[in-house]
């Protein structure tokens, strides 16, 4: 159980350091507006968009507990979807064009779409379903409604914990570059995570399926 929560935190850090999830925007906001306070403000908007994107993906899965009998199938299907997204990103290495149409000031919308397009929410699904499954087996059989309530809580908590760790990780990089290192390090710390990211999705999806049969 604790390992799964650590996975939620770890995935947040992982998303946070990926420039594709927005930390360079926080740096540019502070520089463009010439005030320090623009940095945390931009981070907050990015966090809001990311959080909404996570919940948009996790909530439908948490509602599916009505199908208690189909839990195994749901978790396998979820794993396959995540793997499929990873394979899609492996094959289609183009950047999502929709992001190019978003106005630079609409950071929350941008962050929502960026997370959606990169499958950031999907990466959490197998971990989330794992947590739900452990919860169910610990509490035994309870009414579907109670179960749904607790799963909703878990979904929000997972999204919140993940977004918090993402924001902290991205915020630390953005602040260090803005305050101390300077713009030169912006391009120096910018690594191409496209391949690693796609492989991570495949890895997480495979883990999700594996854990079903492992009995977690």
């Amino acid at each position: 159980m604790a390992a799964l929560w650590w996975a939620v935190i770890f995935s947040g850090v992982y998303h946070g350091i990926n420039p594709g999830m927005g930390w360079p925007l926080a740096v540019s906001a502070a520089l463009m507006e010439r005030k320090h306070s623009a940095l945390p403000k931009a981070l907050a908007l990015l966090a809001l968009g990311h959080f909404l994107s996570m919940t948009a993906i996790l909530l439908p899965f948490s509602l599916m507990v009505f199908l208690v009998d189909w839990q195994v199938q749901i978790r396998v299907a979820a794993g396959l979807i995540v793997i499929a997204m990873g394979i899609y990103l492996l094959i289609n290495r183009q950047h999502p064009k929709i992001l190019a149409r978003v106005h630079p000031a609409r950071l929350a919308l941008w962050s929502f779409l960026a997370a959606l397009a990169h499958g950031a929410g999907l990466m959490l699904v197998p971990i989330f379903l794992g947590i739900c499954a452990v919860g169910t087996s610990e509490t035994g059989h309870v009414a579907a409604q109670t179960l749904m309530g607790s799963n909703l809580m878990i979904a929000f908590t997972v999204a919140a914990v993940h977004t918090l760790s993402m924001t902290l990780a991205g915020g630390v990089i953005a602040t260090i570059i803005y305050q101390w290192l300077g713009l030169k390090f912006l391009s120096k710390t910018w690594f191409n995570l496209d391949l690693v990211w796609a492989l991570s999705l495949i890895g997480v999806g495979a883990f999700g399926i594996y854990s079903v049969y492992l009995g977690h």
Partner: protein
Amino acid sequence: MNLRPDPTFHASPKLAMQAPVENYAFTVMLSPDGSESDGIAVVDLNQKSDTYGEIVHTVIVPNKGDEFHHFGWNACSSSLSPLTGHAFLERRYLIVPGIRSSRIYVIDAKEPLEAKIHKIIEPEEIFEKTGYSRPHTIHCGPEGIYVSTLGGGGPDGTDGPPGIFIMDCESFEVIGRYEMDRGPQDKHYDFWWNLPQDYMVSSEWGLPPQFENGIVPEDLLSNKYGHSIHFWNLRGRKNIQTIDLGENHQMALEIRPAHDPTKSYGFCGVVVDTTNLQGAIFTWWRDDDGKWQAKKTITIDPRPEKAENLPPLLQGFEAVPPLVTDIDLSLDDKYLYVACWGQGEMHQYDVSDPMNPVLTGKVEVGGIAKGAAHPNGKPFAYGPQMVEISRDGKRVYWTNSLYSTWDDQFYPDDEGGQMVMARVGENGGLELDPDFYVDFPKGYRSHQIRLEGGDCSTDSFCYPSV
């Protein structure tokens, strides 16, 4: 795809200025009568090299009559945009349009000495997918490579207005038109933008029948060339405001926004004022209410000249107009260089205060009824035209041809292509370097220059210089 951003991508103009200096220039080779194929010359700019100032490689294309003019990179510092970051693209391909043929060549310049054609986009593909013709200015931006065109559809390019189309920055596939609402825009020339502030500015030359076979004096004297600049919501693809500079301000050409993205102003050069033959620079800016404004901040007077010394086109005026045909702004937004192609002068203005430019340097070379020689004693045909500034702002390169048919009207006795370089003093000032003089192969003229690793009219920056 790289694992790290291309080292020639810079977050801010200041970082670009501190980057290593240029080793090569890529310069257009134009066969003015289409008897030879056009090409790109690779010029050695490394002063320690044995072949410094020489053409060390050429890429000659397979077709004739393309008429190369302007060109640009597939990727620039805009790839570090925090919004649409595509940091792992390479600045590797030159996108070279033929403005007469509407054909586009993609040249792989990864190894400048082995530069070669990577892909050819045939005119039919552009006509079919965009309805535009005569591609011109290239910039890399949020949705790919943006290409401005000078013509619409039909054989003479007047079937519908010209505009901008977008190409994929990796496959070089033509995607389609940019504009969703062009407003009153019906002519086109140059465009540039401010990416974080999300605006674009575009300008107007004239429609193809007004330039392809030479300047049309009747159209000029009746003020029928372009005289407006257009402001766009860049990502919304919408014309938000058009400023008419006044119909006497004929041919509003180069758009040069301040490089620092926190600034909301820039410049536009006007070739000729038909009321007095002056050349002019307008400063445009966004006021506190968010409205765009433009004001004439530089005027350059014509020089009186006896009719017998003038080409037939100008004899009736008994004067040489400056003909401001190109301008370029240094990366620190300090110096604006203004090519006076008619009078044979390159001016340097301190534009630290963009509303009050101050003339700080001037070089005379070539010119109508003057033909001033280069300091090394060799001739300089026509006048200073396409100008490009090194990233560090210390060297200013320029060539001499404006446009095939126009060269012949304004300079009927001249022929040849030259590329020269002037050095900028510590506190401004401009002096031609006697040791840098590139004479183009016989039968070729020269036009736009691009510097290896980016220059002052390609890269768009997404972070301010701090």
